[in-house]
């Protein structure tokens, strides 16, 4: 209980120590602050048999699924926003490539509530969810509870709890307190439903200045911090850089084809030592866009 201060470590060390093969891992961030650098490091370290949890899998899980890190996915909307399909996710589901993927599928409302329940130490969340829709085969357990006051039957969804949550934030201070701001999605709930919390940040600062819309995670709920500038690219970090919409649009072509995807991942992710190397690799790749 005399707590050790939160370690500030290289990302590779954080992933090695706190992401175990076969564990349940959430990398959250609703379009904003998606922890791409951490996802790449998981790919580089060839973690296997992960259960990946995330409302919107986005390109980062497309990459992790396509490189065989995961055997299960808990999610609520699995597309490339505004562009189309996540081809690697589809290939895993439709053809079991590179490895079969079990799905546990929710609506956004169910999943957001399930995260809240996990953060609140409850075994379940209660919500008004429509009856009559298909659930067969979706892999997500649903139940009901009856309100003891009104007799109404309400939907129940099991709480989400994970082994490790990884977030990207704008800033941490030297003691490991973290602040993120802008669209904050379910990041707080994802952090507070996890055994271990790893946060990559744009920068380490002397003092966190409270920001409008700021979400603060005190150091004592943060397991480790790693400084990774531009670590959410091609997602964005409000106040630091914009979303790389062109990358999202171009990804559709890269991921459509297995070999093209493998070559791209080999060259830019597996073939680089760290995220700075990745950024240099893709920046140099504008002409050689197809890998």
């Amino acid at each position, binding site marked *: 209980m005399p707590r050790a201060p939160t370690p500030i470590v290289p990302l590779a060390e954080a992933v090695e120590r706190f992401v175990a093969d076969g564990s349940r891992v959430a990398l959250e961030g*609703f*379009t*904003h602050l998606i922890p791409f650098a951490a996802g790449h490091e998981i790919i580089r370290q060839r973690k296997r048999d992960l259960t990946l949890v995330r409302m919107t899998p986005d390109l980062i899980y497309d990459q992790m699924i396509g490189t065989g890190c995961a055997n299960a996915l808990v*999610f*609520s*909307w*699995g*597309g490339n*926003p*505004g*562009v189309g*399909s*996540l081809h690697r*996710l*589809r290939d895993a*589901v*439709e053809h079991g490539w590179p490895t079969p993927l079990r799905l546990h*599928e*929710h*609506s*956004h*409302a169910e999943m*957001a*509530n399930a*995260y*809240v329940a996990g953060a609140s130490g409850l075994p379940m969340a209660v*919500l*008004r*969810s*429509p*009856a*009559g*829709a*298909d659930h*067969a*085969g979706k892999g997500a357990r649903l139940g009901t509870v009856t309100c003891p006051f009104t007799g*109404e039957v309400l939907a129940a969804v099991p709480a989400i709890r994970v082994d490790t949550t990884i977030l990207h934030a704008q800033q941490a201070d030297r003691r490991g307190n973290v602040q993120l701001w*802008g*669209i*904050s*999605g*379910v990041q707080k*709930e994802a952090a507070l439903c996890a055994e271990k919390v790893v946060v990559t940040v744009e920068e380490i600062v002397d003092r966190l200045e409270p920001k409008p819309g700021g979400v603060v995670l005190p150091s004592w709920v943060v397991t480790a911090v790693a400084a990774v500038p531009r670590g959410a*690219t*091609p997602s964005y970090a409000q106040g630091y850089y*914009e*979303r*790389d*919409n*062109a*990358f999202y649009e*171009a*990804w559709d072509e*890269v991921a459509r084809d297995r070999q093209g995807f493998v070559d*791209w991942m080999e060259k830019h992710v597996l073939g680089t030592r760290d995220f700075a190397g990745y950024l240099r690799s*893709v*920046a140099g*790749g*504008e002409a050689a*866009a197809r890998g």
Partner: protein
Amino acid sequence: MAVTASRLLEDGAVCFVGIGLPSKAANLARATHAPNLVLIYEAGPIGAKPTVLPLSIGDGELAETADAVVSTPEIFRYWLQGGRIDVGFLGAAQIDRFANLNTTVIGPYEHPSVRLPGAGGAPEIAAHAKEVLIILPQSERTFVDRLDFVTTVGYLGGGDARARGGFPGRGPTAVVTDLGLLRPHPETKELVLVALHPGVTVEQAKAQTGWPLRVSESLRATADPEPREIAALRRLERPAPVPPSRGAP
């Protein structure tokens, strides 16, 4: 399609919008006849006022122009389930005659021929918004006799099935397609073709529907887009003033 849909939105309404066509139509309405339309996006922005169309539902532009940005759980708990949404605006991959929607799979769930993105916010938007607008292209592949998967409930089997299900909102009130406009029959809740876009024929609409399509006796033509609507759409669709991808894949 976006123009017709935008005209269905009354000024001052609180509108929960998905990205893509719904966002485009809602922002067109805000730029033309409905300047006080309140746009809520599921990532957290309330009262967003983007000047260009966002590509994704969590774009920075949405947060920076919003009256408030709250957490995603709060959006679904306090704002949607709390009964504060007038209009839910949805797209879909498949629709049936009772305006039930599929965005999950084509083919059987366990062995789909096409894995679609899944539910997202749609099931609860359709359940809780006071009314629901749906926008999707019309073809035999999208307007199907039987959905491969019921992701989102419209009127279930029709008649009073939805009303008996205890849904807080009253359900879909309009379906806008590239061919025209459909409305549910007041009693049976089956979708009825009530308007066609200029140049589209009833036969064409029937041919592009996977069930025997009912047509209103007072079928009308939708009005042509007005110049100010076209101009507003152009402004919304101009490229955002951001640098090109630094990391071309």
